[in-house]
């Protein structure tokens, strides 16, 4: 399948962001699914008490990676990262003496310190992702990365951008010490286009497109994270051509023939109404899609609306099919198999 050829899957980590409600979690899961179909070992990560995976797939995801699905040779693990817990883990590791750090965590001053140290917890959350990305398993010749791909269901828009900015901010406000060391490593990692990419998800609607373009603008302005494709989710399919619709309206004989072909007048009236809704949905989406394509410098991918599927992997599979087709059709996917540019 051509999907594996798209450069997005060459990354070690893909962050998925976008306005709240556009389907970030769905798209993140679909990307994981596509990668797993290619035999990859994938980790799907959500940050903080989002519980998004639970609402989407009906599975509870904990603080340790846990197998969610097997897809042929590929696997998808799920993980929820709690930034507070990550900071405590880090500090415990640094301070080493249990009596000391347990006492510290219980002290109220600890809370104030964390509040006064902006981004510290977020850096730890990113650090966990960094560690996962570099974790290796197996011995000798069988040694390999634990995960081929980590897909992160990142916070929405502004928060997502803020999250990715944190390592540089922390690195700038701290002169030395372990935090600076890790923050600097993170800055380099996030900026490496061979390892990390950000995919923005949007809908063909006004506010999501506006926010997606704004996110892109902010990132290009001062955040060296590689921008992958912008994914337009839930796109209404084009089922009826402008010409035939025009003909229906102008040519009475044609209209009668269509009515006769359907037969039952009630069915015909209903079908006409459904067609009107379908046409309207697409017409509504079109200007926003065009604006996005005109103003973005990113590649755009499209996922068609998925009809009548319940939540769960069945739904994700359908979304993955749509996304996969769009990826396969992308010029970026048409790379020579031998790896030459």
């Amino acid at each position, binding site marked *: 399948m051509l999907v594996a050829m798209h450069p997005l899957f060459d990354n070690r980590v893909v962050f998925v962001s976008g*306005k*709240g*409600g556009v389907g970030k979690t769905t798209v993140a899961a679909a990307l994981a699914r596509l990668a797993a179909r290619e035999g990859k070992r994938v980790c799907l990560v959500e940050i*903080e008490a989002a519980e*998004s995976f639970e*609402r*989407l797939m009906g599975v509870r995801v904990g603080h340790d990676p846990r197998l969610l699905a097997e897809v042929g040779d590929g696997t998808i693990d799920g993980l929820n990262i709690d930034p507070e817990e990550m900071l405590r883990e880090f*500090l415990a590791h*640094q*301070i080493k003496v249990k*009596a*000391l*750090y347990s*006492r*510290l965590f219980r*002290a*109220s*001053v600890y*809370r*104030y*310190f964390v*509040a*006064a*140290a902006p981004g*510290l917890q977020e850096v730890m959350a990113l650090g966990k992702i960094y560690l996962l990305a570099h974790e290796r398993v197996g011995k000798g010749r069988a040694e390999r990365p634990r995960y081929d791909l980590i897909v992160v269901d990142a*916070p*929405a828009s502004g928060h997502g951008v803020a999250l990715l900015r944190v390592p540089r901010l922390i690195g700038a*406000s*701290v002169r*030395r*010490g372990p*935090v*600076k060391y890790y923050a600097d490593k993170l800055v380099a990692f996030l900026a490496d286009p061979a390892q990390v990419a950000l995919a923005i998800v949007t*809908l063909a609607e*006004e506010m*999501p497109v506006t926010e997606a373009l704004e996110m892109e603008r902010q990132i290009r302005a001062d955040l060296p994270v590689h921008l992958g494709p912008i994914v337009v989710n839930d796109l209404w399919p084009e089922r*009826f051509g402008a010409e*035939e619709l025009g003909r*229906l309206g102008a040519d009475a004989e*044609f209209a009668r*023939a*269509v009515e006769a*072909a*359907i037969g*039952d007048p*009630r*069915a015909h*009236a*209903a*079908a*006409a109404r*459904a067609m009107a*809704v*379908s046409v309207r949905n697409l017409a*509504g989406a079109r200007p926003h899609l065009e604006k996005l394509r005109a103003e973005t410098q990113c590649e755009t991918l499209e996922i068609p609306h998925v*009809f*009548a*599927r*319940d*939540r769960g992997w069945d739904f994700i599979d359908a979304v993955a099919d749509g996304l996969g087709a769009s990826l396969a059709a992308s010029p970026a996917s048409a790379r020579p198999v031998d790896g030459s540019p």
Partner: protein
Amino acid sequence: MSPADARGGRLDDLIRSRSMLIVVGSGGVGKTTLSASLALRGAVLGRKVLVLTIDPARRLAQALGLDAFRHDAHPVPLEGVDGALHAMMLDTKSTFDDLIERLAPNDEVRDRILANTLYKNLSNALAGSHEYMAMEQLYNFHAEGHFDLLVLDTPPTHHALDFLDAPRRILDFLSDDTLQWFIRPYFAQAAGRGMRFLEKTTQRALAMLEKVTGLEALRDVSEFFQAFSDMYGDFKVRAERVSALLTSEEAAYVLVTGPAPVTVAEARYFYEKLREHDLRPQALVLNRMHDDYDAPETLPAVSGRSAAAELARRMVANLDEMRRAGRVDQSHVDGLLAVIDPSIQVCRVPLLGTDAVDLKALREIHASL
């Protein structure tokens, strides 16, 4: 009242009797538009209404005069309406500043706090602070009493009801006991001398924290609390009042959902979160719902190969798929309806013809409410 305004009415009692409607639900369900529609209905019913929105789409923003007036409550010109509609956009960032402005005993204290790093990051550090600030604005308007009804649009937050938790969380955070450590006059000086006055182990741990992280946060914290100590009492009273208002009989919650199964699951999550706080939405709005198309149960098979037959076949296939999808969505909605309190008003708003919502469209919407 125009003929269009005479339709609908299920939520009229709610709109007439409460002083606040808080519209909740996950991102993208149409809260902003519905808030505006509820507010407009209030005006039609003769009340003086203010709608506080988050991020309206362009047409709606224009219709509500928000492109010009943004963060000030200003009147929206309406015709043939007994009441009045005002609108404004919530500015969650600056209200914290306004609050400090209001509570600070003098300019110097105010300036010290506004410039303080901890203060600047407080809103990010405390999840729900932005939402809390929206509540603060609501509280102010309510206290001022210029409007009969306030309709509040809420942010599309991941953490469903942070705004409800936020007052308590902020108060816990600023809890009195620890505050004392920081406002003791000698503490600030002691910070430079290795915090002698703190308990030994805590001292060591804090010193270690600063060494490990390289962040001199304690000084910022101490300065913040010293400046803040004068205001703490007032802040506490205020936060408690906001909290009380949000859970009082004056506030009604309107939960909004869309038809998609994932969205309905999120609405369920919201509902349960409200219950955890001993709250219940007074209304549930099913927004952008699909038609059932009133087609015969069994759809005709279309034969023939003419262009007309081919189009007819696709039309029937489209109808079939859309109806089936609508039924799956409806089954999820039914699942939600089965678990909610039967006294909750349920309103069903159909998918509109356009996403460019203006005042006319708002009236169309409130015909379903």
